[in-house]
């Protein structure tokens, strides 16, 4: 998100941003064993299909696959080192506040993802609107889609995310309705 000052013109932002689509950007690294291991460690998942190459080789998959929920991880850049690559929509769309809470997440997993694959992704901004919350009367909601594709350009997974953005309490207290002081 790109924080803007107030007043904030939601209709102007909608007109400019809804429907915008980024170009596909490759993930930083191929699908690898160790991020899968760390993912499984954080949730105590001992599934050998994700962890044990010898076991997985004997299954219908022929080798280790990533947990389906990791598709977007391998299509992304990771948090560090900082990268200017990757779909930038959510970093660029203007919002009144710079705080955010992830709320609704929908995913469709088309096929298993194997070690060594290279994934890319592009984003589409599906919607942006105001809906008040207890955090901020001008809470701003962003709905985006992430399409994850393989090296052939075929979609392997689709994510749809609804993100709540809001201002911190001191900014809300100073200007609750985001009018910038105007009546």
């Amino acid at each position: 998100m790109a924080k803007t000052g107030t007043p904030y013109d939601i209709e102007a932002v909608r007109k400019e941003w809804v429907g915008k689509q980024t170009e596909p950007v490759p993930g930083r690294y191929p699908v690898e064993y160790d991020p899968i291991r760390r993912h499984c460690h954080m949730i105590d998942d001992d599934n050998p299909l994700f962890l044990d190459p010898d076991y997985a080789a004997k299954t219908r998959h022929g080798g280790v696959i990533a947990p389906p929920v990791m598709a977007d991880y391998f299509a992304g850049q990771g948090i560090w080192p900082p990268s200017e690559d990757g779909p930038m929509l959510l970093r660029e769309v203007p919002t009144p506040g710079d705080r955010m809470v992830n709320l609704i997440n929908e995913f469709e997993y088309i096929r298993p993802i194997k070690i060594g694959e290279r994934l890319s992704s592009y984003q589409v901004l599906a919607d942006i609107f105001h809906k008040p919350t207890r955090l901020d009367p001008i809470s701003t909601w962003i709905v985006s889609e992430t399409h994850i594709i393989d090296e052939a350009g075929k979609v392997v997974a689709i994510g749809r995310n609804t993100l709540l953005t809001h201002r911190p309490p001191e900014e809300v207290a100073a200007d609750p309705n985001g009018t910038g002081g105007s009546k």
Partner: protein
Amino acid sequence: MTRKTHTQLYFEDVNVGDELPGFTVKLDATRMVKQVSGSQDFYEVHHDTAFAQAGGHKDIFYNTGWTRANLGRLLTDFVGDEGWVKKMRFEMRRMNMNGDTMKVKGKIAGKRPETNEIDIELWAENDREGITTPASATVTLPGKG
């Protein structure tokens, strides 16, 4: 390594209303660190108490990637090597925080024999908030035929 226990389920083995084997997770500082490591989500609201409270939250809380991973684990455990998780939807309605004991549960909501698809209602809950993360999913299991 060997898995704890796993028996491949088939489409014919399960019925609407059946409960999935759930699991329980105690949430503490070590789990929070694993959350950041595994998800690579370094947004301070998930590990910096002062930052979270300055944003109007009671305390740090567990992130979306971690929550999604737990819901996904319930499903991948259920479908085994031969099944597949086709769709999942969840809402981060309430928070799981350190000190909570989170349970991940599910039950079968529907079956479609023509596609071997099974609809599942699943959720995460804790004693403090009740259901924190309602979810739904569609998975497939292999048939016996």
